[in-house]
């Protein structure tokens, strides 16, 4: 009976298709109605700017929130956001922001200076354990407050002289401060809403649901079915709503890059987050107008958990890093114009190119491993490499697995995990090697090197080095660009020497995009403010 039904339904489908001709695809309909359909990679972990950590979180949050400053769609230079103007004191230590009168939350209330202060206080509250809290350390007294050395928030360099003025006092001058403000951890949340659904200062608050969500961005959360679809709809209360041309953005969390590509081809998506490596050449040849390879300020690397036996030996870590044939990995496996990575900071980041190198040297790698007491891999334990599920990540991991087996005699086991579980494992330190990537938050080496600071919430490897932290501390307080770069060089040399990570390649962003998407400019950080994007049917 069931089989008969199945057969009948197939017949019905066939007749439907033959009868009505091709149906209008989601993309064609979207072009007509200004609804952008985009793949977003793994599902987002958190709808809370204070707790979000990943690029797919940014992809969604940037539609739902807006910080004091926003980004120019082409250059990413700071442009007025919630703040309509700002002044900088002559000593570059105090920034005064004037909030616009018509900035509104999606529930209609005004966005005030108090909202910002309360949000930042929340980020710095130790109990919340926000991964990105250290980005606020640049503010006077923020570090002490976050580390619990002071419980008085009024000692932190934030103040609100009135409802529409925010004043921030920095610990030291920083030319990149306005770019730093574009990071999501600085975006405001609506505290009264949070308090309605639990404690605002602890994790696990359930305010980020369509019925309860309050944001201040050009779009607001309409619906969210985890793992399927998140719909952000144009917000009527946004101050610049008249200039927002998209009516809605549909985010599809498709972890399987192959499935994402099929969805794109089937007319379900305007743009994808990634592209299966095997398809790059075919698109290059047949449909180059759909393929985009944008520069992308990021590093693809493996974290090494240095608290684990075997991996706590510097020589072993260096051996692993040296026994990677990056040229072939990038040129033959990835084929997307990436650069082989021999250090952590991408070359040319804010005028800085790392000199330290973890080059490819199989003989040296074997020698180091033998010195560590594992000649030819004898006596070495099986090393586990944790991956979040993705065809591309697995391909790279399989290539490395074989390099390490062939060159060092090491056995590496690949462990697959779905995105969210992988994040939990990372937070708990339950990994040995872990696939990771770091995308710059702003174009400055500090954005990369500060990941490895001992107190960084993004370190996760258990590695810390006081000399390294000291160098970063000095660099942050050095104004002369050359002297600052020298300090970064020293820090990077130290980092590369200790190798708590294995650099693999510097990113390019390879994705597919429909020609009807306008205003999607190649930017170094892969930020594309949705308010400047529109659709135009060809």
């Amino acid at each position, binding site marked *: 009976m069931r089989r008969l039904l199945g057969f009948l339904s197939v017949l019905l489908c066939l007749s439907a298709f033959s009868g009505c001709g091709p149906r209008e695809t989601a993309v064609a309909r979207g072009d007509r109605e200004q609804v952008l359909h985009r793949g977003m990679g793994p599902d987002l972990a958190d709808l809370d700017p204070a707790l979000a950590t990943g690029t797919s979180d940014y992809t969604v949050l940037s539609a739902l929130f807006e910080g004091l400053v926003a980004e120019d769609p082409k250059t990413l230079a700071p442009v007025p956001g919630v703040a309509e103007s700002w002044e900088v004191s002559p000593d570059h230590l105090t920034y005064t922001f004037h909030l616009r009168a018509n900035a509104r939350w999606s529930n209609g209330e005004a966005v005030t200076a108090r909202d910002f202060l309360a949000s930042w206080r929340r980020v710095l509250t130790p109990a919340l354990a926000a991964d990105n809290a250290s980005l606020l350390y640049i503010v006077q007294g923020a570090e002490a407050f976050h580390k619990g050395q002071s419980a008085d928030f009024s000692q932190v360099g934030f103040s609100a002289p009135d409802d529409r003025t925010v004043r921030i006092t920095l610990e030291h001058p920083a030319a990149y401060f306005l770019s730093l403000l574009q990071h999501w951890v600085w975006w405001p949340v609506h505290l009264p809403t949070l308090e309605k659904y639990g404690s605002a200062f602890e994790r696990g608050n359930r305010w980020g649901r369509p019925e309860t969500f309050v944001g201040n961005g050009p779009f607001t959360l309409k619906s969210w079915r985890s793992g399927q679809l998140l719909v952000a709809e144009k917000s009527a209360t946004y101050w610049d709503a008249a200039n927002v041309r998209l009516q809605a953005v549909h985010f599809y969390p498709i972890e399987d890059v192959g499935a994402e590509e099929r969805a794109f081809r089937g007319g379900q998506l305007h743009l994808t987050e990634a592209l299966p490596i*095997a398809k790059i050449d075919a698109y290059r040849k047949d449909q180059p107008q759909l393929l985009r390879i944008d520069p992308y300020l990021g590093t693809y690397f493996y974290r090494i958990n240095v608290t684990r036996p075997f991996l706590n030996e510097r020589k072993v870590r260096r051996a692993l890093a040296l026994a990677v044939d990056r040229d*072939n990995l990038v040129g*033959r496996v990835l084929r997307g114009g990436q650069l082989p990575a021999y250090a952590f900071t991408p070359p040319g980041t804010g005028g800085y190119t790392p000199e330290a190198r973890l080059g490819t040297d199989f003989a040296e790698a074997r020698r180091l491993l033998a010195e560590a007491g594992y000649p030819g891999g004898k006596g070495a334990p099986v090393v586990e490499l944790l991956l979040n599920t993705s065809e591309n990540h697995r391909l790279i991991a399989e*290539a490395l*697995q*074989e390099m390490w*087996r062939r060159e060092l005699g090491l056995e590496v086991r690949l462990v697959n995990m779905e995105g969210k579980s992988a994040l939990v494992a990372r937070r708990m330190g339950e990994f040995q090697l872990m696939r990771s990537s770091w995308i710059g938050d702003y174009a400055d080496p500090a954005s990369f090197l500060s990941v490895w600071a001992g107190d960084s919430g993004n370190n996760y490897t258990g590695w810390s080095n006081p000399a390294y932290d000291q160098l970063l501390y000095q660099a942050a307080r050095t104004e002369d660009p050359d002297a600052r770069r020298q300090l970064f060089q020293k820090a990077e040399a130290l980092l590369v020497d200790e190798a708590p990570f294995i650099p693999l390649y510097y990113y390019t962003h390879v994705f597919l995009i429909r020609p009807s998407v306008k205003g999607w400019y190649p930017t170094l950080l892969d930020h594309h403010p949705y308010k400047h994007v529109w659709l135009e049917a060809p």
Partner: protein
Amino acid sequence: MLSPSPEKLPSAGLPPTLEPGTSPWRDAWHRLSRNRLAVFGGVILIVLTALCVAGPWFMGNDYQSQDLRLGAVPPNAAHWLGTDTLGRDLFSRLLYGGRISLLVGFIATVVALVIGVTYGAIAGFFGGKLDSVMMRIVDILYALPFTIFVILLMVFFGRNIWLLFFAIGAVEWLTMSRIVRGQIMSIKRMEYIEAARSLGFGRRRIIFRHMIPNILGPVIVYTTLTIPAVMLLEAFLSFLGLGVQPPMSSWGVLIKDGAEKMEEYPWLLIFPATLFSLTLFSLNFLGDGLRDALDVRSSKD
């Protein structure tokens, strides 16, 4: 083994010219060997198994060694079936993967068969309260989402390929036990069972020597269907990261990889899929043949 021993045969009143009796197994073998399709299936299976077991020892190429510079190339003299995107020889991977897939198929199926038949036969034979309890347990296990059950087993016992075989077998027996129970219920009241009962045979003997041989038909057919299902299951689990892990391969993994790249590198799909289909067809033909051959009711033709 299953035929009544000569002493138990009623000896009186038989004509002296009776043709010599043959065992049901010999009969079955005879019928099977006359079924061309079944023989074809059996031969293919044996050849495939032999190739997969012995092949990798004679191959010049290793299933895990890569040649990144080479990348994916179509079939040629050095690589008979071409290479995958990491430059690994597909033929070696296919043979090596065959070991895993065939092992999974057979071990998991045997586990499912043993548990399922025993369980179903006991429930069906005794009936009543015992039957209700046993079948409710099956219902409960049915209600458990399969993947979660396997994941639980894997988490509990660790990642081990042998455990994977047993874990799959341990969840695949449910349907088998239901089929067996139904069959047993339907033949329970038949005359020859009554006869065996009145001859005073023990329950165990009745179940295992009189009932199970009579329900082998559906059991064998279902078994031949279980093997491919189990192979596919293994592929699915491997994809989730619970089954076979790289660099090992299995047919399921190869087919999945090939399907993703079929437009660019069709040979990566064509060869594993052909081999897999060939195995499934052979199993089905052999299963059909076995069912016909083992059907005791059609034995006196």
